[in-house]
């Protein structure tokens, strides 16, 4: 095989583009999980975001409005999940799975007449074929990629330093205690779920408007699941989401480049590697916890329904 077929600057730049949808979806899911809710519908919210963003961008001609549409689409679908799990107390796991199945089906239906269309292009800070490596990697991107990098930093600061963040974490640690102190557990979780939906929608829209850019049925191809794995990989720490997204994104791009370079390694090994790495991290985390080196990282109430009994 021919390694020289892989240009490092191009490679890094495309890793950044590939990582952004994962990063956006994962940081949203992290906030949701921090409040103790497990929403397995990330894949569904992403693809709804992808199709809504794509349609909005094509119809209005504005890719920026496209991202707004994508976020609204993802948020709207997450409201369904929020109402079902918070008010009707449905179990979170099957509800999330249903959300994914519903999102895949609904997006395919809505997007039927948009297959094959080229969306309006998102402007980049710098573009062209003659950029040097620095320009290509640091400046050669669209605004959404930079926003995507800013969101985890903002989430980290809010969770760590603000009262809102403290309340979010408290609800995820012990919803009974939070309720006893007078916090509205259901509404706090509702808000977090909608934020998570909007982020997943943005991630989906980034796929259909920048990364691919095109609409095809089922185009997320498991990105939502990788985002879920990414939250675990990052052990619920916002800044590690960036690192994880770049590693997982890097693997995805490597896969394509290796194919192009004529590698003999079956690509399936690389496609499964994010999950293998995540399982390894899970084992490592619980081992560290068991031997008292670190604390349990997962929010204690993760996946548990809350009902105020009195």
């Amino acid at each position: 095989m021919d390694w020289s077929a892989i240009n490092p600057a191009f490679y890094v730049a495309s890793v950044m583009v590939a990582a952004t949808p994962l990063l956006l979806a994962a940081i949203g899911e992290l906030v949701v999980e921090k409040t103790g809710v497990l929403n397995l519908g990330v894949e569904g919210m992403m693809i709804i975001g992808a199709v809504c963003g794509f349609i909005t961008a094509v119809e209005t001609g504005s890719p920026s409005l496209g991202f707004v549409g994508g976020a609204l689409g993802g948020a709207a679908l997450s409201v369904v999940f929020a109402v079902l799990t918070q008010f009707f107390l449905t179990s979170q796991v099957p509800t999330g799975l249903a959300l994914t199945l519903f999102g895949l089906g609904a997006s395919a239906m809505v997007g039927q007449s948009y297959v094959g269309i080229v969306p309006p292009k998102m402007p980049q800070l710098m573009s062209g074929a003659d950029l040097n490596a620095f320009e290509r990697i640091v400046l050669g991107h669209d605004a959404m990629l930079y926003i995507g990098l800013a969101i985890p930093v903002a989430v980290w600061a809010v969770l760590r330093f603000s009262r809102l963040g403290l309340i979010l974490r408290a609800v995820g640690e012990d919803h009974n205690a939070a309720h006893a102190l007078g916090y509205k557990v259901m509404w706090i979780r509702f808000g977090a779920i909608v934020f998570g939906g909007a982020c997943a929608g943005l991630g989906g829209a980034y796929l259909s408007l920048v990364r691919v850019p095109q609409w095809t049925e089922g185009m997320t191809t498991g990105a939502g699941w990788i985002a879920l794995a990414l939250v675990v990989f990052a052990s619920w720490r916002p800044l590690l989401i960036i690192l994880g997204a770049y590693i997982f994104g890097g693997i995805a791009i490597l896969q394509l480049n290796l194919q192009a370079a004529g590698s003999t390694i079956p690509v399936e090994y690389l496609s499964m590697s994010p999950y293998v790495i995540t399982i390894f991290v899970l084992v490592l985390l619980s081992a560290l916890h068991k031997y008292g080196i670190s604390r349990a990282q997962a929010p204690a109430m993760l996946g548990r329904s809350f009902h105020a009994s009195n």
Partner: protein
Amino acid sequence: MTPPLLTLTGLTKSYPGVVANEDVSLTIAHGEVHALLGENGAGKSTLVKMIYGLVTPDAGQMVLNGKAFSPDKPSAARTAGIAMVFQHFSLFGALSVAENIALGMENPPKMRALAQQISKVSDQFGLPLDPSRIVGDLSAGERQRVEIIRCLLQDPKLLIMDEPTSVLTPQEVDILFETLRKLRDAGTSILYISHKLEEIRALCDTATVLRRGNNVGTCVPRDTSARDMAELMVGTRLHDPERRDRPKGATVLDVKNLSAASHSAFGTSLKDVSLSVCKGEILGIGGVAGNGQDELLAALSGEIRTKRGMISLDGRDVGHLPPTSRRALGTLSAPEERLGHAAAPDMSLMENAFLSAATRKALTSLGFANWGKTRGYADEIIARFDVRTPNNQVAARALSGGNLQKFVVGREILQDPDVLVVNQPTWGVDASAAAAIRQALLDMADAGKAVVVISQDLDELLEITDRFCALNEGRLSASVPTTELSVEKIGLMLGGAHDLETANV
């Protein structure tokens, strides 16, 4: 004359199937420690939740400092100067002390300033506490300090404490009382909820007694005997369990040189334990918790299986048999931990009845559960042991500790075992329920059954058992007839003075 701090008039609250409070009135003066006394399920918690804004009353008024007071949420109550320390702490294990305290405040200052305030208040009231520690690493007493300091930082006029001593060691209780007295002297009123009468006599100025949701009287605890207060609480004369002379029958349960490793990493293994129990006899096993009590119960119930020849029932070797087979043969047990060991917390009482009684009560047919019969059995337990619950469909978790204990012990007794092993049968149970459980155990012995009572409560063991032995670091002392025991002798036995064994052989 200044008006009283808080006056409640005619407060009523009902839930589906239960009237939690009916027309309750009481008055709390400034700088008073006011006890709210009542059995499990008498409506104490509901009453204070109304004061704290967690529950809205159906009828009645509250007047705070001469002004009408109707908090619709806890933050409104906190703003009005009411603070509450919960029975089950409302703390977040993964967060730091300072973060936990900030969560309970309306307008917390910046973390650094808050940490200084915490240190200041903790010095002032003698409650040492490091603001940066993670709450999950603290002991029960330290966690309670976090709650108390959280309340004190808001400079409350009324501090509500819901059964604060149930999780504390005696030393921690002393520290707590010292703090509460300092607070009272500083002018804070305290509403103190408990069913521990001696504590109330030591601490409180006035006591209001609730029974089944009604205010049944007020008394001055210092001038009232514990027994009178208990009878006011229960509403009838308290019966001491009656103990009759009964003939001792043949040996039923025989344990010889039992050694078994604990299943838990922090447990105590049993070392060379021998005991025997006859028909019509109650054997008491005393000792400080964690000396092998859980393991002994597990070995007798079949949760820990032992080598052949170590445990025999009616001459039959049973040490290697699992719990279901032991149940079928007549050994039943009621472990100490109610939620999670004796009962499945989120399953209904009916389902919990099925779980342990399926074999002996023949609640299955052809492998299917017979729910009709199970329902009947659950209702029988509820009726016979006066379990206060709306119906048998309630989740075990929803019952108060004492009620669930009555259910758990009743469930085993009504299966008519030949040998019953109970661990801490009246732990956290109020006076009348405890008396009922003890009476039930005595009745079993009168009916010619063998009973093993493992307990930390020496009074309980002296009251109902025929023979006594002490468990210490997994070793069991020789048994002594209870009538020959003195407190000093028990103390020596519990301390593991093994020369005593030889002296008594």
